[in-house]
């Protein structure tokens, strides 16, 4: 097994871990954390695909790597927006949860 495949399995496990955290935690802030974990796993899979595509003198396929950079930036913007919404909700209501009938995220 190459180290790329090893990290691919690691990425798959991260996705599962993050998904578990997303389902199981009621607080939105923990859900946002879990999202970032799932995202990290997905990006890791991109990195694995990039590493496996090393050829023509390059150590990795630059296209998936660039896609990950774009994805990281977009994920940060999403986290910022979600956190801002959550903090405003807290300011307005004093609570930081979505209503208790929130079964799935």
């Amino acid at each position, binding site marked *: 097994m190459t180290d790329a495949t090893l990290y691919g399995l690691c990425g798959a496990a991260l996705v599962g871990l993050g998904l578990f955290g997303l389902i199981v935690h009621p607080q939105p802030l923990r859900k946002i954390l879990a*999202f970032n974990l799932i995202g990290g796993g997905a990006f890791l899979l991109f990195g694995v695909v990039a590493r496996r595509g090393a050829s023509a003198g390059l150590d990795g396929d630059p296209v998936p790597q660039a896609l990950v950079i774009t994805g990281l930036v977009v994920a940060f913007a999403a986290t910022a*927006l979600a956190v801002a919404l959550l903090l405003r909700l807290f300011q*307005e209501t004093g609570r930081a949860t979505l209503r208790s009938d929130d079964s799935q995220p």
Partner: protein
Amino acid sequence: MPNSATAGGFLLVLAIVLPIAGALLSLVLGGRHAERVALIVMPTGVVVAVAIAATIWRTHSVLQYFVGNWDPPLGVAFRADGLSAVMIVTAALLICGIGLFARTQFPTPRGVEARASLAFWTLLLAIWGALNAVFIGGDLFNLYVALELLTFAAVPLVSLDGSAETLAAALRYLLFALLGSILYLLGAVLLYGAYGTLDIVLLSSRINAEPAAWAAISLMTAGLLAKAALYPFHLWLPPAHAGAPAPASAMLSGLVVKAPFFIVVRLWFDVMPRVPERTAAQVLGLLGAAAILFGSVVALRQARLKLLIAYSTVAQIGYLFLMFPLAIMPETGHPWNSVAWTGGILQAVSHAFAKAAMFMAAGLIAEALGHDRIAGLSGIGRALPTTVFAFGLGGLSLMGLPPSGGFVAKAMLLTAAVAEGQWWWAVVVLTGGLLAGGYVFLVLAKALADTSQPVTLRSRISQSRQTLAVAVALCAVLLGFVPLRPLELLQIGRPNTAVVDVR
């Protein structure tokens, strides 16, 4: 299809650049200029949209453009076929109507910059640009970025009034949308890992029926269903669409929620044709049926008008997914597929106009009465007859009564269902129509009820805004004059199918 960039690509670029440049300009100029920029961009954007559709119709081929002159798979391609043309024109016309309607609600007075107004006009233009990017995107990752642009522009519109309920609704919308995005990305990485490209046309020639493709399409579809609020991922939609200001609700229900559906169509019909998918299509249809029945029944039980209309959106989205089991081509080819295809797209377009008109009407009623409780609507028919007329016209399309685009769409879906022997979908369509009739008449009966004393309006509603609502609803009605056969414009870019005459 020619493999080089075609003329008219400039128009495609303009369709994205114009609204987004307008949004940037609005942000910089701020204040009262935000609205002015939007008012200049709107008619220009309509011209561009019509030009794109005209070019596609005239040349009867797909408009293709390689951005930066880099060929896929290295570069990104824009592709506009008949389906894109129809959606681009729909978006342009609807956003124009909504923008004109919203001028009263989001004024930009001289000297002061109002938060809600600046946000509204900037986000409206951004939504438009994002929608066009979705409709012409030919690369799955480019579509991901366009979807994110759409989400970030749509979510703040939900919480524009700043109340706790809308903030919670916006946060829930964002969380669902993020889940959708991440599932979509997971599918995309599997596709790239297996086939080395994310270009739609190249993928369609490289893809095979194997676990990687199956998993990828399932993940991406699941993510897009969450964004499109198809049952059982619909939880976020009613509070979000009901809590947003009326023009924003019109955009959200009419256009924003159609974008993920559009990408599912691209995935299933353009990327996947070589992968057999009949059972999976039946599952999608089943979810659509569940959405229709569930959404309509819950709509009947709503006490607030905007929530009723929002649940109606949940139901009408279900019709869109009935298209999949009916239009998917098995190996042997099936002439009724093009009928179902036309019906599904027509449902998307006519619902966009009808639902926008209904939300506009509901917004006017809420402004006039100060509330939108259905029980308190008595007498509004006498006070705001034009508004209630707009609501009723929109309802025609929802119920599937002639003349309306909704009738043509549902009739085509019915015909295709019966002709292909999948009669169970016909039952669902008919039941959905009956239930829609139920909740539309619920509102109309209350609104047109006779009251002893005339109802007092809290604020004056201008006739022009009411007429705008009627005009938008009339677009849905005009679509009813589309002949009951596969639309030739929509067939541009589809693989050759036997076109059948439905009379």
